[in-house]
C-alpha cells in the first residue's frame, strides 16, 4: 500500500515539511471512538498529516453504518448526570438485557444536549480534511469484512504500512 500522498488541502504547514501523527485505533465503542477522532480532526485542522490505523474492534468505526454502543459493564468510573447527581451502575445491573441500550440512549442524548459532535460528524470531518484512514487487512479477514462494508476513501494495509507511517511521525498514539 502506498504511503499517503502529501495533501494540498491548504492546511497550514501541510505538505512535505508538515508534522505528522499516527493513531492506532483499537476500540469501537461509542465512548472510545471519541479520543482518536477528536485528535485526528483537530490535528488535521492544525496542519498535521494524520494517519489512523483501525484494528480489531476499532475497525467497526469504518463501517458505512455506525451502530455505536456504550456499556457501564466493567467501567466503574462511568457515572451519568441524573437528577442533579452523578449516578453509576453496579456491574450486576449492567448485565441485565436492555441496560446497555438505555445507557447508550442516555449518552447520545447528553452528547446532543451539550453540543458535542457525533462520531458520524467527526468521521466526516476526518474524511474532508484528508486524514489517511487505514483498515487493518488481518482484522478484516478475521471478522469477515470487505471494503464494500467500509466507507469510501479508506486504504487497506497491515503492520508494515503502519510502521512506515509511524517511523516518520512526530506523534504516535495507541488508543
Amino acid at each position: 500500500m502506498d504511503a499517503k500522498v502529501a495533501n494540498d488541502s491548504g492546511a497550514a504547514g501541510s505538505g512535505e515539511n508538515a508534522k505528522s501523527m499516527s493513531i492506532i485505533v483499537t476500540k469501537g465503542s461509542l465512548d472510545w471512538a471519541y479520543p482518536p477522532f477528536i485528535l485526528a480532526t483537530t490535528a488535521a485542522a492544525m496542519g498535521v498529516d494524520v494517519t489512523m490505523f483501525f484494528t480489531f474492534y476499532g475497525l467497526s468505526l469504518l463501517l458505512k453504518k455506525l451502530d455505536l454502543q456504550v456499556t457501564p459493564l466493567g467501567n466503574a468510573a462511568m457515572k451519568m448526570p441524573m437528577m442533579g447527581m452523578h449516578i453509576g451502575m453496579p456491574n450486576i445491573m449492567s448485565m441485565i438485557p436492555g441496560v446497555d441500550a438505555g445507557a447508550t440512549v442516555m449518552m447520545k442524548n447528553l452528547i446532543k444536549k451539550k453540543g458535542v459532535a457525533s462520531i458520524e460528524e467527526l468521521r466526516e470531518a476526518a474524511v474532508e480534511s484528508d486524514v489517511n484512514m487505514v483498515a487493518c487487512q488481518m482484522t478484516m479477514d478475521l471478522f469477515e469484512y470487505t471494503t464494500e462494508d467500509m466507507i469510501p476513501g479508506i486504504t487497506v494495509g497491515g503492520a508494515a504500512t503502519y510502521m512506515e507511517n509511524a517511523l516518520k511521525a512526530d506523534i504516535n498514539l495507541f488508543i
Partner: protein
Amino acid sequence: MADKVLDAKGLNCPLPILKTKKALKEVPSGGTLEVLATDPGSVADFAAFCRTTGNQMVEETQDGGVYRFIIKHTA
C-alpha cells in the same frame, strides 16, 4: 469589521476549531475571521491553534458567556 463571522456558540470541543479551520479557507490572506464561542475551553484552544498554525490572534474579548476571537488569516 471582520471579513467573515463564524457563530460557534453552543458547540463543544473540537467543533469550534474544526469550523474555524474551514471558515478560514474562505477568508482571503490578510483578512480577518470573527469567531463567537461559548465553550470556556476555546480560550486556551484558539490561542494554541493560532500559535501552531501561524495565524494571528488579533483580538480576544468576552461578553457574558460569549467569547469573541478575531483571527487574522496569515498562514
